[in-house]
């Protein structure tokens, strides 16, 4: 099957993109500047990311949708405000993660942003869990782009008036060239920024305007180093159907109220894991040497016993050192514990460390 090209494919080519096949899409891994320059540009200026491969699912509100969504997602949807976004998960009965996602309450229903590789399956799972009672649209006529970095706010404000007043994890509708576009203040790089949902026909003109105003296109390669420095999980690597939100150290995303009231898929498992702990847990890891411990690298204790495995590892261009995340047996999860990583047959010392590796600069404030 041929890879799908996003509406920005021609622009990527013009910008010197190298493409890779990703979740059935032809996506830019990097442009001519390379991953490190792109990463640093995002941290110092503003980078544009084509994330149109991700799923944009709309569920139309009618009879008891909120109640039924609360049976699926572990968040407080009864009290979510209009245009507010929440990070959450689609879990199975055993609290294994089908996908991680962002839910936003919009006029007339909910928008859910899904990972590209999961979106079709998510659609079927959610439809089944909702007993096929609601109108659901997985948009193909919309592109999704992100602009991230300290200059993102100035650049977007130069392009359209208004988004600078948005708070982190909040969105709204805006107008661009007679088109309705939906912008949220969010992202996945550890920087302030915005995600923009816009019609396929309008996206190239819009992105070109952002470039003219000082932003640069950034590929999936730098997106990965940016999110890893920010300590954020990549689905299919750091989390999957065999890991739970508690093991993944993501229980902050589960609403406290919902932990008391329960009634969501995976609740029993989540609750018992919070009460009695888990066998393994996701931690940040810094190798002491200049080695990169990539996914599947085995983790050992001092006694040379395997105690875990790396799920993501790279060289962090902003922190200027190798960084990694992985799962270790819970007794080895305290910050500062010395562990060993087996890379090319040799064991290298490393430490369990605090996440994120790079401090976030989100624009918070009143709701």
């Amino acid at each position, binding site marked *: 099957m041929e890879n799908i090209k996003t509406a920005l494919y021609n622009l990527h080519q013009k910008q010197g993109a190298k493409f890779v096949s990703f979740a059935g899409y032809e996506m830019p891994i990097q442009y001519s500047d*390379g*991953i*490190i320059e792109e990463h640093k540009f995002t941290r110092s200026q503003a980078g544009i990311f084509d994330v149109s491969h991700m799923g944009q699912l709309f569920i139309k509100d009618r009879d008891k949708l909120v109640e039924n969504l609360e049976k699926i997602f572990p968040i407080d949807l009864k009290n979510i405000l209009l245009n507010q976004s929440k990070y959450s998960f689609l879990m199975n009965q055993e609290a294994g993660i089908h996908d991680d996602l962002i839910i936003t309450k919009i006029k007339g229903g909910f928008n859910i942003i899904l990972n590209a590789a999961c979106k079709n399956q998510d659609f079927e799972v959610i439809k089944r869990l909702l007993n096929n009672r609601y109108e659901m649209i997985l948009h193909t006529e919309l592109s999704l782009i992100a602009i991230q970095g300290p200059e993102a706010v100035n650049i977007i404000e130069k392009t359209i008036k208004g988004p600078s007043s948005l708070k982190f994890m909040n969105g709204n509708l805006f107008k661009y060239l007679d088109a309705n576009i939906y912008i949220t203040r969010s992202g996945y790089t550890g920087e302030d920024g915005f995600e923009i949902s816009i019609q396929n026909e309008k996206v190239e003109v819009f992105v070109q305007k952002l470039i003219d105003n000082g932003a640069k296109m950034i590929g999936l*390669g730098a997106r990965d180093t940016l999110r890893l420095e920010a300590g954020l999980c990549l689905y299919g690597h750091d989390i999957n159907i065999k890991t739970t939100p508690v093991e993944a150290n993501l229980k902050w995303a589960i609403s406290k109220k919902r932990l008391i009231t329960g009634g969501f898929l995976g609740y029993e498992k989540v609750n018992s894991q919070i009460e009695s702990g888990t066998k393994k847990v996701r931690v940040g890891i810094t190798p002491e040497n200049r*080695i*990169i411990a990539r996914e599947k690298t085995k983790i050992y204790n001092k006694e040379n016993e395997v105690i875990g495995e790396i799920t993501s590892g790279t*060289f962090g*261009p902003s922190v200027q050192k190798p960084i990694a995340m992985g799962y270790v047996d819970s007794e080895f999860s305290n910050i500062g514990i010395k562990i060993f990583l087996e890379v*090319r047959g040799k064991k290298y010392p490393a430490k369990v460390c605090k996440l994120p590796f790079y401090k976030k600069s989100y624009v918070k404030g009143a709701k």
Partner: protein
Amino acid sequence: MSEVKFSKEHEWIKMDGDTATIGITKHATEMLGDIVFVELPEIGSSIAKDGNAGVVESTKAASDIYTPVSGEIIENNQSIVDDPAKVNSDPENEAWFFKLKITNKSEMDSLMNKEEYEKFSKESGN
């Protein structure tokens, strides 16, 4: 100025008497992307042709470095260990990897000249 030869593993090799200086090609660095880590062979070690002689690690992946000829390592370039980005900026000069005392000069014969290598790297695609 002696002729520079090239291997199918994208190393370049320059002879000066019995001493060969070896590095990776510009084309190799373009495939690898930004290099963030270099591991070099130890001085005094003897490595046979096509044997493992270090590792380069880019933001994308780790790749082994092979020696295109047999010999004893007599020097390695610590400056690229300290500043791996040099390998991207000047791979075919300043960012050489190691020097070795060649044991079998006839091994040079099977390597490609510049023209052949350019054709090879174009045809090998990526």
